[in-house]
């Protein structure tokens, strides 16, 4: 099967500082891929680079089209949903508005309504709080809102940055269960960046390990999971 996202020779810069050197990977259509790495390895930067939120250089092909250098909002309109670190909630808008804004670019209004219902099916808690200001939600609820909002874009690819960050283990489990359903039922491909490597490797089919802005290892999750170095550095046993 052809790759949905193909990244080659990706470099990224913050001002004068280069933080990615020659990153390359592929995401198969319909799969879940994870990027592992220590703090500062360039995982978040890679996600930001895909959406052109940092200065980048290199090839990024999505569904066969070169998207490098396009404006962030135009890339998003190709149905790549980015769930940023810190969740990116519109704090002064209501939950309902946070969800509707994500459907802003869609023209299929009837389908939007159906999607809203499905999203509420995944996250019933959001339905209870639909008229609440999003800034008043708890951390877990805001993470759910961020994923829900990404779904409202009707994405083909979802970029998730640290969805477990700062959340209680039970909530993390719930969120990961839902991610699996989203992948299987809605056929959304996922690129997952996660500190919790064990969790990420359980969910993902493929894994790439980043170190100081370079890919140092890659392969099917089952292989990566059993690698000596990965076990020592990221899984802790």
């Amino acid at each position, binding site marked *: 099967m052809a790759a949905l996202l193909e990244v080659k020779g990706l470099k990224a810069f913050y001002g004068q500082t280069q933080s990615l050197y020659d990153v390359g990977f592929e995401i198969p259509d319909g799969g879940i891929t994870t990027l592992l790495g220590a703090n500062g390895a360039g995982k978040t930067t890679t996600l930001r680079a895909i959406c052109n939120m940092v200065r980048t250089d290199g090839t990024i092909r999505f569904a066969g089209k070169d998207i490098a250098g396009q404006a962030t909002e135009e890339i998003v309109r190709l149905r790549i949903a980015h769930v940023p670190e810190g969740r990116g909630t519109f704090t002064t808008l209501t939950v309902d*508005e946070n969800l509707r804004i994500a459907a802003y670019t869609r023209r299929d209004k009837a389908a939007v309504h159906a999607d809203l219902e499905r999203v509420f099916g995944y996250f019933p808690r959001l339905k209870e709080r639909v008229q609440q200001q999003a800034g008043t939600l708890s951390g877990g609820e805001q993470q759910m809102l961020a994923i829900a*909002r990404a779904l409202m874009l009707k994405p083909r690819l979802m970029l998730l940055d640290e969805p477990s960050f700062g959340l209680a283990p039970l909530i993390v489990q719930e969120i990961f269960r839902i991610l699996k359903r989203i992948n299987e039922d809605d056929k959304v491909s996922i690129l997952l960046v996660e500190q919790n490597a064990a969790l990420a490797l359980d969910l993902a089919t493929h894994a790439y390990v980043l170190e100081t802005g370079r890919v140092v290892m890659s392969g099917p999750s089952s292989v990566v999971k059993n690698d000596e170095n990965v076990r020592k550095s990221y899984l802790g046993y």
Partner: protein
Amino acid sequence: MEQFLQQIASGLANGAIYACVALALVMIYVSTDHINFAQGEMAMFSTYISWQLMTWGLSFWVAFILAVVFSFVLGVIIERAILRPLHNAPVLSIVVVFIGLLAICNSVAGAIWSYLIKEFPSPFPKSSFGIAGVIGPHQLGVVMVTLIVLGLLFIFFRYTPLGLAMRAAAQNPQMARLVGVRVDWMLALGWGLAAAVGAVAGIMVAHIVYLDPNMMGGILLYAFASALVGGIGNPGGAVVGGFIVGVLENMVAYAGNQIEKATGIYIIGNGEKLTVALIIVITVLTVKPAGLFGRVVVKRV
């Protein structure tokens, strides 16, 4: 008593004008963090456009709508052409550009239409409108027109997808991009709307203060005071602030008048209106910078 009611009514009419200009200022402030010092002069320019259209024979309301549309387009163009390229410039540069715009609008209006003070018509019927002895026809008309405009804006921002997108772009531009909102265009659109609302205020107030290139100076100062009273990041607050400041302004003058009548000592009157606004601006800025209804925003260092 009747005089007192009259003062309140005329305060509300002025307040409606301040509310519009304050709202225009706040709309630009919430989306770009800029204070548009040229807002008043842009409104003045649009008012001249409407005057020009009327002298060419158009009716008041047609001229009104055309001038408001013109302002909208002008606002969009100014944002796209002049301010967009400077969006990362230091504060001083931005302030200087606004002052430059102010000087251009003022002097070009003076050059085209001269600095002679002109009468400006009122579109409201003299006889059947208003409440005798309390509120004049034009004052009532001003309050009604501004309330309609403010209501339309509220509906636009609250209930339309475009309005929602504009609010999202103002609140969190980065995240708005990530849901596909073309943030740059939203800012330009915000500028256009702000200019249009300012134009409404200018055309409505011109009958009261007469038309001349410096007509908006005092009104802009009062609009600043209103926006600050309401909290400069709060559109609803700016509108309420406008009415509060409008009534307050008249009450201060009224009280000064009464004191002079009772004691013969002059303290404050119509001649000190701008000073009152200055005091409001500086007091609110230093004592309660978030305004009456604003939230305190902690700035990251």
